[in-house]
């Protein structure tokens, strides 16, 4: 019974991810795109739950849905007004994009199907937050510091760019 519930909710999560992604890519209204992206990101967070990692799922909702989506909403409000009519789509470009993406899809799908994935010989089954925190401050401390530096530089760069660029007001 619990297996049935888990399977059904897994398919719900998968449907949210894929439908959200389709809305994010295909809808004409840019605001619908952002909403679709949020739906898809919540679906991906659900997938992370199924992959035994509640911490990364929480971070996914906090950072992506909570911060990045809202930042994109601000960019929409600060740029093009929504009432302007959208320019007509170029059917040739749409077809070319669909063709290229389809080719990559076939290639990656075949690659996934043909590869024989073998698990590592010795595996540890410790998915707890404590372990992640321990590793972030011992073995992967350089990555941790690099993330901080990257975010600082990105913040400064965003301020400088948005205030009018080099030499601007």
């Amino acid at each position, binding site marked *: 019974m619990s*297996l049935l519930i*888990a*399977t059904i909710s*897994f398919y719900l999560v*998968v449907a949210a*991810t*894929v439908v959200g*992604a*389709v809305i*994010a*890519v295909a809808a004409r209204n*840019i605001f619908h*795109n952002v909403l679709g992206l949020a739906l*898809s*990101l919540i679906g*991906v967070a659900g*997938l992370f739950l199924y*992959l*035994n*990692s509640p911490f990364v799922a929480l*971070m*996914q909702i906090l950072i*992506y849905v909570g911060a990045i989506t809202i*930042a*994109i909403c601000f960019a929409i409000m600060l*740029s*093009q007004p929504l009432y302007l009519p959208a*320019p007509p789509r170029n059917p040739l470009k749409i077809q070319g*994009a*669909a063709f*290229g*993406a389809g080719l*990559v*899809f076939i290639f*990656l*799908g075949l690659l*996934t199907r043909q590869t024989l*994935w*073998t*698990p*590592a010989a010795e*595996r*540890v*089954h*410790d*998915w707890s937050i404590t*372990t*992640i925190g321990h*590793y*972030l401050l011992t073995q*992967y401390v350089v*990555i941790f510091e690099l*993330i901080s530096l*990257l975010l600082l530089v*990105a913040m400064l*760069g*965003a*301020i400088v*760019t948005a205030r009018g*660029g080099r030499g601007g007001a």
Partner: protein
Amino acid sequence: MPAFNQLNTYLYLAVILFCLGLYGVLSRRNLIAVLISVELMLNAASINFMAFNRFLAPHPAVGQIAALFIMAVAAAEAAIALSIIVALYRKLKSINIEQANELRG
């Protein structure tokens, strides 16, 4: 074995997400829509890392740290891209990428 306990399910899902994102990057002209599509592609990469972490990796913290790193890079990328969008709109009064061609020879 249920579908959510198999590696291939997650890998195919990531392929679908990645290709939808690629289609969006290639077909859309609105700069914000391109940014949204890039976020989808980054998420596909995260799903792959987490799936390999769950089913194959010798130590289960590695993939989670890689996914966290991707999130931080995506946040930085979004901040920079949004400030570029604001600056571009101020200069061109449009965020259609086909009009941003001042450097064309």
